[in-house]
């Protein structure tokens, strides 16, 4: 399929109900960090955007939300697909982005350039959707914080090397900070800025 045709297909078949379905998953995911969610809605975003990341974009992005795309995604058919299905403007300035999408293996040196909001308006911050290889076979990480009864364990595989250090820095900014969604194919889990991540010791 050529780029143009790829951009026009693969959106929600039932925009109203599909978006509601995905939103409830994201809302529940944010309210219960670390819970594994699976997108069953049949959409087909162009590679390298996974189904879960694509569904999130269709559900939450529109003309009011500048979107930042990592280099690998920006080179693909995704910019056209996003433009056609959501109308979201795309920006190269991380600071302007409300949503940011990163492909598998993205080298992440800092969260700092993404908007973290201000002390008065911490909600004016970016949500980073990070595609990784999978969410089930990595080394175990323990999550604690609001939304989690006691603690929970997640096993993301292929997190950027610097992720845990960046996340610890992100937490010190509270109430400012960015929120992260880890996506792998149809699966995703949410990490709001309040969640504390520690390496699980056996």
């Amino acid at each position, binding site marked *: 399929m050529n780029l143009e045709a790829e951009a026009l297909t693969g959106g929600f078949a*039932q*925009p*109203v*109900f599909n*978006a*509601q*379905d995905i*939103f*409830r998953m*994201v*809302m*529940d995911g*944010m*309210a*219960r960090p670390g819970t594994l969610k699976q997108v069953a809605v049949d959409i087909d975003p162009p590679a390298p955007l996974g189904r879960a990341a694509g569904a999130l974009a269709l*559900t*939450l*992005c*529109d*003309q*009011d*939300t500048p979107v930042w795309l990592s280099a690998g995604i920006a080179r693909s058919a995704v910019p056209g697909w996003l433009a056609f299905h959501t109308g979201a403007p795309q920006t190269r300035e991380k600071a302007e982005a*409300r949503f940011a999408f990163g492909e598998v293996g993205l080298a992440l040196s800092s969260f700092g350039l993404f908007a973290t909001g*201000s*002390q*008065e*308006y*911490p*909600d004016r*911050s970016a*949500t980073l959707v990070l595609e990784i290889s999978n969410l089930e076979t990595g080394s175990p990480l323990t999550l604690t914080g*609001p*939304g*989690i*009864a006691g603690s929970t364990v997640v096993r993301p595989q292929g997190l950027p090397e610097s992720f845990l250090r960046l996340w610890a820095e992100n937490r010190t900014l*509270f*109430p400012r900070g960015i*929120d992260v969604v880890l996506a792998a194919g149809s699966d995703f889990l949410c990490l*709001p*800025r*309040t969640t504390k991540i520690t390496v699980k010791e056996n």
Partner: protein
Amino acid sequence: MIPDVSQDNGLATYNFAYLDEQTKRMIRRAILKAIAIPGYQVPFASREMPMPYGWGTGGVQVTAAILGPDDVLKVIDQGADDTTNAVSIRAFFQKVANVAVTTRTVDATIIQTRHRIPEEKLSAGQVLVYQVPIPEPLRFLEPRETETRKMHALEEYGLMHVKLYEDIARNGHIATTYAYPVKVHRRYVMDPSPTPKFDNPKMHMSPALQLFGAGREKRIYAVPPFTDVVSLDFEDHPFAIQHFDKPCALCGADHVYLDEVILDDKGGRMFVCSDTDYCEDRRAHGHAGEMLAKEAAE
């Protein structure tokens, strides 16, 4: 399951759940940030709703943005399912979303509430949506939004403690009985909406997600499940909930919030559960309070 949305009568209808999709996305984004920053009031572009401000337009917009065809909706007003506000909001969502409704707390997936938290313990699959008139807990102490925003930014809540202290200085105890301020996740001081302080402990570590919508004031805030919610107090004047001398006159329930009902002009009165569903359920299970037992004996 996705309902059939084909229009066979040829007439245009409202979008599902009344709001247009762009409005829903805007509200949904605000809800996600509200959950990520527990207790912080997220500004949102509140819409005109087909009901006046003060009737729960904030709660209605939050409910409309999260509601799906599989949800079961319960609406309560001061604990009751059958008062004007509750009945009309329930009818509204039946009309614009064709959603299943219930009065039973345990059957509901979304509970929109005005000023009460159900007596029945909520579970993980449920979302409680509060209608909030004035979301800013510091508003009556400091009228300027610029100032209260700065106070939240700097975590400067001394004024609120002064207010509670003045309560003690004047009355000997903290005389605030509803909209009793709480601190969420050890950071933001939050107005739990005008619920009686009796309900404050239910917010702490609740398994259900709690969302707050203020339509006129254009704010959304949230308390995620299993989050610390602590009522403000002093070491020598600890927070305490209301206690009632007598159990419910109809169902005999103890440890519930009671409403006073005046019976005649000679000082006759009764105290009954404010949560009508809880009271009816108990009576159906054979519990009888003082009044009911007397009636049965006659």
